[in-house]
Structures are given as C-alpha cells and as structure tokens.
C-alpha cells in the first residue's frame, strides 16, 4: 500500500512559490515532471533543465555551487531521479557547500513512466538519508504553510539544505522547456558572464 496523503501538495504550486520568491536562483531541474514544473513557473536563462542524465541533477548542482559560491543554487528534482543518484547525497554531505539546496518533490512514484510505485512510496525516506550523510539542514514539507520555509533556508545559505516535499501523485500538463542542450548551456553561461565559445 502506498503511503501518500490525499491532501498532499500540488507540485506546480510548490515549485512556483519557490521560484517566484527569487528570480535570481541558479536552478538545475531533474528530468521529467520536475523540469516541466520549473518551466511552468516562468523560464530563466539561469534554469538548466535536464531531459535525460537521470540521477545527475544533484551532482550538476554540486559542481555549479562550488563554482559559484556567491550565488544560491537550487536543484529541483523528483524522488525517482534522486533515488538513481542516491550516492550523490553522500558526496554532497561530505563537501557541504553552503549555497546548495536540494528540493525533492516526492510523490512516491515514477511519474514519467506510468506512475509505478517507487522506493519512497514503499517506505524509504530520503530526508533521513540526507540527515545521515551530514546535510546541515533537512526538512520535510507536508503542508502549504511550510513551503515558504524552503525560500528562507535557501536565502540563509547555511547548507547544504535538503527539503523533502510530499506532493500528490498527479500529472499536471507538460510545460516543455528548451530541448537543445547546447542552447541551455550557452544561455546559462552567458547569464553568468562567461564565454559561450
């Protein structure tokens, strides 16, 4: 039996609140619905949407956070994507970049492939794993009132920060970002003042 509340949060609303609070965030989104959620809130040159490379979102965020210590880096991804990169939680726990936040939208399912139940739907708790690896701040968000805490923690820059957000297992319509990886890379670097080659 999948342990998911019927009152779980709406993923689009959660992501929209985080991103509209601060348009200067550097964002990496994990493949699938998380990328659509980020795009649905409004596009930005400093949003890098993954369409593949499953399991890589948090580590892209780590490399970016180390390179840009004066900016706030937020990884927004799903439970399935983070489960494939489970070891990266340990790697980030060791490196402890203060400016990196990982937000996992947890619906307990592999949403993109037909809503099969995932490990988190069967009892695995990613927040407890993040705590055990040494993340400075870990929170589980279950109600709409708590979502604003994510933005506060990101701004506080006392990370690494891990937010597990319990969301409903629904599939809002797709909001498709740029597919061209070279364009995504170049516009991101340009926005940070780097050459695009």
């Amino acid at each position, binding site marked *: 039996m999948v342990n998911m509340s019927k009152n779980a949060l709406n993923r689009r609303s959660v992501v929209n609140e985080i991103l509209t609070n601060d348009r200067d965030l*550097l964002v*990496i989104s994990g493949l699938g619905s998380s990328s659509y959620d980020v795009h649905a809130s409004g596009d930005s040159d400093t949003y*890098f949407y*993954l369409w*593949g*490379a*499953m*399991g*890589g*979102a948090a*580590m*892209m*965020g*780590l*490399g*970016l*956070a*180390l*390179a*840009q210590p004066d900016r706030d880096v937020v990884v927004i991804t799903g439970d399935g994507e983070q489960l494939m*990169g489970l*070891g*990266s939680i*340990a*790697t980030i726990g*060791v*490196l402890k970049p203060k400016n990196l936040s990982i937000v996992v939208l947890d619906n307990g399912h592999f949403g993109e492939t037909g809503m099969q139940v995932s490990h988190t739907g069967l009892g695995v708790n990613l927040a407890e794993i993040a705590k055990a690896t040494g993340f400075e701040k870990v929170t589980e968000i279950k109600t709409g009132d708590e979502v604003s805490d994510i933005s506060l923690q990101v701004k506080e820059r006392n990370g690494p920060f891990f937010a597990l957000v319990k969301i409903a297992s629904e599939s809002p319509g797709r909001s498709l970002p740029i597919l061209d*990886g*070279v364009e*995504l*890379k170049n516009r*991101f*670097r340009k926005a*940070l003042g*780097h050459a695009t*080659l």
Partner: protein
Amino acid sequence: MIENTTATYPWEQELFNVLKKNNIKQIPYLPDAGHSKIIEMIHDDHSITPVVLTTEEEGVAAVCGAWLGGDRSVLLMQSSGVGNCINMLSLVSNCNFPFVTIITMRGEFGEFNSWQVPMSSAVQGTLELMGVQVHRVEKTEEVAPTVDAALYSAYSSNQRIAILLSQKLIGRKEW
C-alpha cells in the same frame, strides 16, 4: 620482476603542474592506486577542490555543473568506472560540454585479478561509442604533455577526451 616505471620519472608532479597551469578548479575522483599521489597533491592544494565520489557517473555530472558555473575540472577514475558513466555521458555529448577524464588502466598488463579484465577490454570502445576521444599513454614522460593537449582541446573547442594511463605505465598491482 616489478614493472613499475614510475620510480624513475616524476610524472605525477608534472601532471599536477599541468592541472594547475590549466586552471583546473575541481577534481571529482574515485581513487585508484595509480592516482593516489595526484589525489594527495590535490588535497594539499587550496586552490583545487577535490570531490570524492561514490560512483563515477556522479563525476561526469559534476564536471558539467562546474562548467556551467565557469569552473574547469578533470575527472579521475580507474578503468572499471568507465562502464558506470555510460548514460551520464549523454549529458556531455548532448550539451557539447568540454570534458577531460584521466583513467588508470587495470586488467591489461600482468593482471592477477581476472575480474578487472572484461571492463578494461571494453574501455576504449565504450568511450568511443559515447563520443569521447581516447588518447592512450604508455610512457611516463608522455603523461603531462598529453593531458595538457587534451585540456587545450577541451577548453578551447568543447572536445571530449579520455586519457588512458596504461597499466604498464602505472605499474602492475602486486598481490
């Protein structure tokens, strides 16, 4: 009996100098005996951030994230790790990220552990199938110039290059 050629040539120091000269800021790695000296040097240097990984594909994603933010990096691993990287290399090729990895080879020269051989034999083919050029180095004095050339190509025109340090160069593992 011992085929280790490293004692007579300070290739690790030269390699480290090349990494510094090329302004490498982040070095994600999974350890290997052949990389052990360079990993020590990186940990002793405050201008480079070493990133110890749990599996090699983490490092592929880290290299790409670093470059988005403007940092140059190099991924260190041993030959068995190449198989772990396959799908993550789609990030590198699809976005045309510059990418340099230095791979120490096992399973090819005086190898005692046959479990190392299947992946070792597939390293070059795997990398080439995923769009990564392969430069193989057999002599210690060629390590630094080869890495220097790879970094130049990668960071001047977004090329993807793996440098294989042969097991003969590293020295076979004694059991």
